[in-house]
């Protein structure tokens, strides 16, 4: 939208037309958004450009060689360690987003359809966990999933197991569990919003035309809340691919994700260009897989008639 709005600046030939433009609705709109726009440009767009630029350069000990090279990308894409990390990161973030959306949808649905007058209270309760630090929330999962943690002692006292299970913590499952918990609120909210927008008469119309409750849900409610599902999916998937804290704290050896490798290149390994190439590759991969999932979702929903 902004790109279109900027168009007329280039073709304002005469001073009178220029003055007229300055007074126009469009000019006022641009003036209004320009501070935030410039801010976004400086703090979002430029850093990304710098990272992309770095990814084509080479690190020579302490100096950066600015001749163009694709060597970093060759390494990022062919080194088995990075390939494994990419696959694992994508797999974990995909699992996390699917599980989060699947768990969040019923919650959002319940609040939207059966929240009654207490909808806001429910939403408030859902955001309560977010008040504590992200780090603390991740740490608390260590307490829950640990060897002598809540889960193990609980299961032992119920007599379901007789010695602590070690497979709960320090692996990719722990990462998935922790991330799903951390991101649930962010998935519930967009789904809730799009469910709120579903006209309840449409569901009545579906029932009137012969659908059972469940059928009406799949044929009307779900397709119409798809925008919320898609945004929930993206909101969860995009940040979790590059998550650094959670794998670090609960992931152990098996839970290492690509962010750890990127951090290492920018830190100890001091190879910024390779780190940049890994980041850019991650970005591209996330965008591609997100797009693929969105398309697949839309297609599947379209098939339900």
């Amino acid at each position: 939208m902004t790109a279109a709005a900027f168009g007329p600046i280039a073709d304002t030939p005469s001073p009178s037309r220029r003055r007229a433009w300055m007074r126009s609705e469009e000019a006022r709109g641009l003036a209004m958004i320009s501070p935030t726009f410039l801010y976004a440009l400086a703090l979002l767009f430029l850093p990304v450009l710098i990272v992309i630029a770095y990814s084509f350069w080479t690190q020579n000990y302490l100096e950066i060689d600015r001749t163009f090279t694709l060597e970093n990308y060759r390494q990022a894409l062919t080194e088995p360690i990075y390939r494994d990390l990419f696959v694992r990161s994508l797999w974990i973030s995909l699992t996390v987003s699917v599980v989060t959306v699947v768990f969040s949808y019923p919650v959002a649905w319940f609040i939207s359809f059966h929240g009654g007058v207490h909808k806001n209270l429910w939403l408030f309760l859902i955001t309560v966990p977010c008040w504590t630090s992200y780090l603390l929330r991740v740490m608390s999962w260590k307490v829950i999933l640990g060897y002598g943690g809540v889960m193990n002692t609980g299961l032992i006292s119920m007599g379901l197991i007789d010695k602590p299970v070690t497979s709960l913590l320090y692996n990719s499952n722990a990462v998935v569990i922790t991330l799903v918990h951390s991101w649930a609120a962010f998935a519930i909210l967009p789904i809730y919003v799009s469910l709120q927008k579903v006209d309840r008469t449409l569901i009545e119309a579906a029932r009137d035309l012969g659908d059972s409750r469940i059928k009406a849900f799949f044929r009307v409610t779900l397709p119409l809340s798809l925008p919320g599902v898609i945004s929930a999916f993206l909101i969860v998937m995009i940040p979790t691919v590059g998550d650094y804290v959670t794998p670090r704290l609960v992931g152990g050896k098996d839970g290492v994700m690509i962010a750890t490798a990127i951090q290492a290149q920018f830190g100890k390994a001091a190879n910024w260009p390779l780190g940049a190439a890994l980041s850019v590759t991650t970005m591209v991969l996330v965008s591609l897989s997100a797009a693929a999932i969105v398309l697949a979702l839309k297609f599947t929903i379209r098939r339900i008639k």
Partner: protein
Amino acid sequence: MSDRAMIQIENVSKFYGIYKALDDVSLSIAEGEFFSLLGPSGCGKTTLLRSIAGFENPTAGEIYIDGVPSLALPPNKRPTNMVFQSYAIFPHLDVAENVAYGLKRLKLSPEEEKKRVGDALDMVRLSGLGQRKAHELSGGQRQRVALARALVMRPKVLLLDEPLSALDKKLREEMQVELRTLQKAVGITFILVTHDQYEALALSDRIAVMFGGRIAQIASPKEIYQRPRTRKVADFLGGMNFLKAKVLGEQGNAVSIDAARFGAVQLEKPQGFAASSGHVTVGIRPERLRLLWDDDRAPHELSGRIENRAYFGEVTHLTVGIDGLEQPLSMVETNNFGADDLPIGAEIRLAYDPEAFVLLAEDPPVTRI
């Protein structure tokens, strides 16, 4: 239209807490009838319609649809289909998919389904618009899609919840004619909810007028307009001059009354009429009073003066003060003879027909909170 009852509503009540949305409603609608539920907003007409469709659960009573007690059935198990006030066109489907929505359950062959959808679209004159999306349709077209979507199911009863209220006047009148024609063509029982008395009068075989969750009167349009039972019904159906009158005597089914300046008139006793005191309310429609020009003579005349005048294009509404009457009379004159040119204060004579008076029963007291 046959004599067989398609819908039988027996003592249906619906309470929201202590609020009575429906208060012991009983009525019967014949197969193939065009039946209207008319009343002001909040009178319970929509609640009653939604109870027939299965979207409301009455607190008491039973509704039989084609002889089957239906209150325990969910909406999808009832042989009724509804045209919603907002039309409720599925925005994610195109017109043909909307119309085919309910047919999917019937597992028809693709050709058969296509044919039925095409026929339904032809019926509402939307052929060729099957690929349009809901947001590309005008209000009138959406209304037609909603109709086609319901009719394609071949329901035993079609329920229409103020289907024309969102359309502008011209289109509404067009659709009224179409709706009536359509109903005659398909022969399905139609139940229309409306707050527009002209719509109800123009479309229905019978009308039920509702106030405060109760049915005030059920009758044919002509009867309900000309012989309203109570003052409220008379008032809701259009303009009416109300007069206090004294009862002179009763003879069988007739009552003779003294209607002030109009003299003694003999009136038919309405159902449930009981002259508890010696006073009653009678009414006469404004258009039943006629202006007399120059040498015109009529058997029953009154003279008065014009107190107010409002020009409505084809007619002029006059307010005429009569000596000896508490309230001025309102009357409607066509503008063919120059009623619109009469100055305020002009002395006029008017003619009336004593047979045009209706004796009105007391409205039941409003019991709900």
